[in-house]
């Protein structure tokens, strides 16, 4: 028995050593996260959290002269696949008055154009919308479609340029340079929170290398265990225009049915989802 026990404990030590080496390997891996890994985790935290998502979105478009326009909408999102994969979006507009009751549906695909449909209530008409440019402005704001639903990770070259604190939070600082030349910026610097991987700040530089747009995450809340940016701003430094976005009534994993993303509900949106 004793002999066996000795053997047994020796085996235990062997196992522990193995586990330790695996753990150390894992933690070593964590230190050696590549820029792509960080951007992927950031996308997961920012655009793909939960199985589905709902928010009432209040957008305030503010011109250089201080004139304000409001866009109020409910956004519903459901994931189909992993981070970077397919998603469906359903958007219902409350404000301004001339777009009240309009609905908008997007099937987002990685590495190809979206499918987009718009419902115009005054004509009771559903139209497909041409969507070749994901860098287009979303409803006239300073945010683009990509800023709302994410940019393909493979579209950029990513590099970690440094690690630093931003408002007391440890961040990775990533430089992302678009591989294609037809993008409105030449590169982007992102400050990504090391703990929850949310982007805290992004700086967009134009073709001349001058800073022209700044994104800031202004408020975070924990909703059902998912850290969520509930207030954000995109400011265009070149024309002085900015857009503030506040998410209210945020919820995750609410059981959005696949049937929501259909022409039926585009024409007759269900109250239970849009309210």
């Amino acid at each position, binding site marked *: 028995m004793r002999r066996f026990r000795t053997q047994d404990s020796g085996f235990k030590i062997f196992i522990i050593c193995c586990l330790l080496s695996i753990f150390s390997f894992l933690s070593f891996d964590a230190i050696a996260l590549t820029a792509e890994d960080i951007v992927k985790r950031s996308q997961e935290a920012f655009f793909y959290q939960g199985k589905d998502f709902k928010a009432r979105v209040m957008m305030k*478009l503010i*011109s250089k002269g201080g004139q304000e*326009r*409001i866009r109020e909408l409910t956004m519903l999102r459901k994931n189909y696949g992993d981070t970077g994969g397919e998603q469906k979006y359903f958007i219902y507009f409350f*404000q*301004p*008055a*001339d777009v*009240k009751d309009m609905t908008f549906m997007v099937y987002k695909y990685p590495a190809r*154009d979206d*499918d987009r449909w718009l419902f115009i209530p*005054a*004509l*009771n*008409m559903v139209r*497909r*919308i*041409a*969507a*070749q*440019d994901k*860098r*287009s*402005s979303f*409803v*006239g*704001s300073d945010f683009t479609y990509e800023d709302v639903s994410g940019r393909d990770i493979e579209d950029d070259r990513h590099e970690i340029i440094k690690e630093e604190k931003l408002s007391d939070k440890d961040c990775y600082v990533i430089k992302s340079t678009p591989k294609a030349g037809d993008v409105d910026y030449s590169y982007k610097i992102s400050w990504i929170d090391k703990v929850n991987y949310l982007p805290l700040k992004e700086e967009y530089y134009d073709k001349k290398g001058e800073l022209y747009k700044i994104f800031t995450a202004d408020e975070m809340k924990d909703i059902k265990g998912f850290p969520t940016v509930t207030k954000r701003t995109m400011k265009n430094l070149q024309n002085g*225009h900015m857009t503030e976005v506040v998410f209210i009534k945020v919820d995750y994993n609410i059981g959005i049915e696949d*049937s929501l993303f*259909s*022409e*039926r509900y585009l024409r*007759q949106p*269900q*109250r239970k989802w849009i309210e």
Partner: protein
Amino acid sequence: MILALMSSNSFAIDASLHGFFQGNYSLSERSNPDGGDFKWAEERFQLKLDGVEEPFRLFIKTDAYFNHIDKKGDLEVREGYIDYTAKNWDLRIGRQVITWGLGDLLFINDVFPKDYEAFFSGRPLEYLKKGIDAVKLGTYPEAVSLELVVIPFFEPNRFPDSKRFWSYNPMLGIPLEEKEPVTNFKNTEIAMRLYRDISGFDASIYLYRGFFRQPSMRPDNFTMPARLTLFYPRLSVYGASLQGRALNGILSLEAGYYDSRQDRKGTDPVIPNSQTRFLIGYQKQVWEDFTIGLQYYGEYMHDYSEYIRSQPSQIPVARRLYQLTSIRLTQFLMHQNLRLSLFSFYSPSEGDYMLNPEIKYNFSDHLWAALGENIFGGGREGSRLGSLDRNDNLYIQLRYEF
């Protein structure tokens, strides 16, 4: 915005009221046939009441207006219906606007009534569509969605008024009698649409049994007409459409067979022959906030030799293939508050055209204005757009929305 929330113990209606004040004036560039200077001049107030008590919804859209041309005001119920929504089906009963098909201002399988006078006189686009008093049933099984529309009351298209619009009319001045289909079971119109996704394309099949909404004109005598009867011949339409992403844009294909049931042989000179209508459309975003839309549309007349044989000599003959092309250019500027657009129709078979440049600006979230022009020309006597040649007009739409 007025948001009324009325609630009692077991009864809660979620209701909202919205609407607009609108001024809409269209100046004729040449005086009208009756000497007037405006194609349209009115102030309008619209109220939309929307109430929901699930599974029911009540929607009423009523316009009150004052028309300066006729110097009279009136009320008009644009839409007014009740919805009932169940899990896999729904029902809409009452006055409703239905828009089917893929064409941009070209309609093949959208067999519902239009107001072309509104379109040609620079009124907002929504006034092109007339409501119908109908019952619509929707069912949504997995395999295919279905919309079935039953229309007991016939509603014709509205065409430009002869007092305000110059037009080609060789029968002008002869007394007219209009005969609309009487409301009975046999004359009840039925329209059906089946649709589903086919590998990323939106596919639809359409069936319609009813009447032409453009009247045919039968004289009591072809050589010396003393009396004309306007009537709406029987029509069935069988069609299909397909739309999806292709060629870096959106491709639309639509076709329909117009079965002229009262003149299947094509020998009656006043009833349109059966036709095949088809449409190819392409839409592309060229750069940010700039899109281009192109369409090619055709109407192919069947039994053309019978048509030629039966036509009275004094009336210009139609071609076997009528062709129409369109271009739409749209540019948004200033954070989508300013919209510049140009729409054009040009018919390669007739040589006539219509141009509609427009500029629309949103002064605030509530106030917008649009300024545009309708220009017609080209073609020969009796061609569809060319015959509107002397009706060019400059219009303004001003709307405060709440």
